[in-house]
């Protein structure tokens, strides 16, 4: 489509001279894009913040020993049922965990791979005994997953020998300070003394009831020869389920769970939030397109006289149609651009000036590019009908009937 200069010239003149109408549609497009941009950033930011709070300081994918699988309940001597044997057993440990670790290290998109010895312990102090979760982790990898340095509320993140990091809830319950010693008993009844090196706040009660120690110490404390969990954090949290299912095809001897599987309610909530946001945006777009279509339609009727004259003095059908398409496109483009600027300003105002959000807005390109492109497409589509009318108009209709 080659646009001839006169088409541009006439279209722009119509827009400039029809100030009020132009402003109406222009305002509609700009407002629509701005609101969509703002809404997208707000809801996107909220979701990122929710997900971050949920899985930010926890593994995204975990590898666990295989769950219950059937075994033979026949006695070794022959065809006699041995009722003392359990019909299903489950592995307590991942014995060949180093192989899994090697394999995982070769995968891309992973942030941290942490072998974990996990189990239960009981802290005994002042005559009370309280159950806590014990996690023996690789200190470097664990520091990445649980963001030791960032989440440390006091002390230092030291995991070696008898040094442990305790969750905030545990520390409060036993009034522990860095440097304090505490006795932890394992589920077999034996126990050991540990020294608190730091206290960590992971944001949730279950996570704050964990006592972290080094992997070797954990293995020893829980009497494990191997480990019983590999925790993985990945770069793009939303790819967790996809990766997990790919890994499941790779390995059948371990159980692989993604954070999505373990947080179904959150996902459902996020999804319904997205759906309602999309629905609102759809109706915004819909009403804007109705507005553009009707204003451009009215303008086409008002300008039919001018078009008739233009056609009498030589504008062809294509030219007449393009005069309206150019108007739609111009309004779409300029309105979108303004909408992006207004939307951005609105987001900044909301977060910086009002301080209304406890989370950062997700100001990313897709949030304004998509509504902007949609607005341009819709404005152009809305100008199709007046353009078609303009193409069909014959000059005599105007000259005869005025």
């Amino acid at each position, binding site marked *: 489509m080659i646009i*001839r*200069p*006169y088409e541009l*010239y006439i279209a722009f*003149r*119509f827009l*400039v*001279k029809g100030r009020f109408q132009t402003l109406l549609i222009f305002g509609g497009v700009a407002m629509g894009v701005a609101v969509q941009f703002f809404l997208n950033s707000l809801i996107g930011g909220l979701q990122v913040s929710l997900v971050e709070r949920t899985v930010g300081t926890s593994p995204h994918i975990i590898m666990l020993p295989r769950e219950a699988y059937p075994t033979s309940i026949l006695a070794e001597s022959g065809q006699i049922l041995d009722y003392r044997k359990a019909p299903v057993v489950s592995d307590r440990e991942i014995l060949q965990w180093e192989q899994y670790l090697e394999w995982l290290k070769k995968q891309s998109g992973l942030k941290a791979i942490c072998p974990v010895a996990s189990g239960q312990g009981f802290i005994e102090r002042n005559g009370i005994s309280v159950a806590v979760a014990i996690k023996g982790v690789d200190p470097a990898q664990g520091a990445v997953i649980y963001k030791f340095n960032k989440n440390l509320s006091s002390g230092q993140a030291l995991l070696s020998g008898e040094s442990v990091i305790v969750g905030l809830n545990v520390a409060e319950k036993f009034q522990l300070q860095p440097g304090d010693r505490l006795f932890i008993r394992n589920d077999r009844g034996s126990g050991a003394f540990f020294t608190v090196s730091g206290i960590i706040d992971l944001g949730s009660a279950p996570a704050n009831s964990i006592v972290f120690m080094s992997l070797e110490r954990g293995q020893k404390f829980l009497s494990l020869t191997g480990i019983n969990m590999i925790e993985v954090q990945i770069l793009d949290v939303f790819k967790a389920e996809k990766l997990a299912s790919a890994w499941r095809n790779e390995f059948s001897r371990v159980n692989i769970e993604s954070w999505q599987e373990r947080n179904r309610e959150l996902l459902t909530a996020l999804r319904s939030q997205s759906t309602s946001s999309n629905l609102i945006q759809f109706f915004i777009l819909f009403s804007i397109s109705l507005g553009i279509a009707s204003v451009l339609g009215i303008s086409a009727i008002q300008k039919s*006289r*001018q078009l008739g*004259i*233009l*056609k*009498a*003095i*030589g*504008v*062809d*059908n294509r*030219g007449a149609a393009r005069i309206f398409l150019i108007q739609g496109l111009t309004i779409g483009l300029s309105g979108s651009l303004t909408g992006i600027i207004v939307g951005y300003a609105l987001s900044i105002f909301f977060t910086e000036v009002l301080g209304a959000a406890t989370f950062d807005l997700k100001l990313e390109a897709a949030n304004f590019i998509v509504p902007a492109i949609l607005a341009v497409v819709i404005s152009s589509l809305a100008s199709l009908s007046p353009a078609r009318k303009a*193409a069909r108009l*014959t*000059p*005599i209709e*105007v*000259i*005869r009937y*005025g």
Partner: protein
Amino acid sequence: MAEIVVVKDLTKSYGQLVKTLVLKNITYSFEKGSFTAVIGPSGSGKSTLLNILGLLERPTSGQLIIDGQDFSRGEVNDYSEYRNRHLGFIFQFHYLLPEFTVLENVLLPVWIEAGRPEGAIYRKALELMSAIGISQLKDKYPAEISGGEQQRTAIARALINDPRIVLADEPTGNLDRETGFAVLEVMTGMIRELGTTLIMVTHDREIALRAERVVELVDGRICRSFVVKEEGVERVKTLLEDRRCVFSD
């Protein structure tokens, strides 16, 4: 003198179920470079004839040849380029675009044809406008000037592309008598100077007297046609006074 527009057996009817015959078998040749007045009472079909000659309406049947080219068939909207290059229009109402200044209105046909005009075309437009007496209004909008000035602007617009034929439909119909004659004077003067063919519809017999040829339409048929010089002014006056029209059939 050569013929520039030839119509043969031209008819025009409107309506699908009830057909109204507006033009009935018109056959006539318009001379190149001449001024022909088409007269007749209202409803006689003179405007329809002019619109067909201006390629703004299609004839129902018959032949229309302009400058050797056959325009009997085809869609009105397909002839936009020909209208732009070779035909100039002046209507009863000025039909200027209110969004454009007087100078821009005059230059519109050039823009449509060739894009943004060069300096030479600007000078030509300004010369044309000063000859017509509107050069001082070039930056005004149509709503800011008088009816006579509007019509003069329309005349300049019709002439800017050096058309072969100028078609005028009651160009002074909306003006008071004095202004009307002044505008007419300018228009016919300019057109004669440029050697352009002028076909003008009017119901004003006094205006028709200024033409070289007169065609009188009654009920969609040519009642009489004559060359003013050949008949002599006095005879033409009586001919124009004569309201009777007897068709041979």
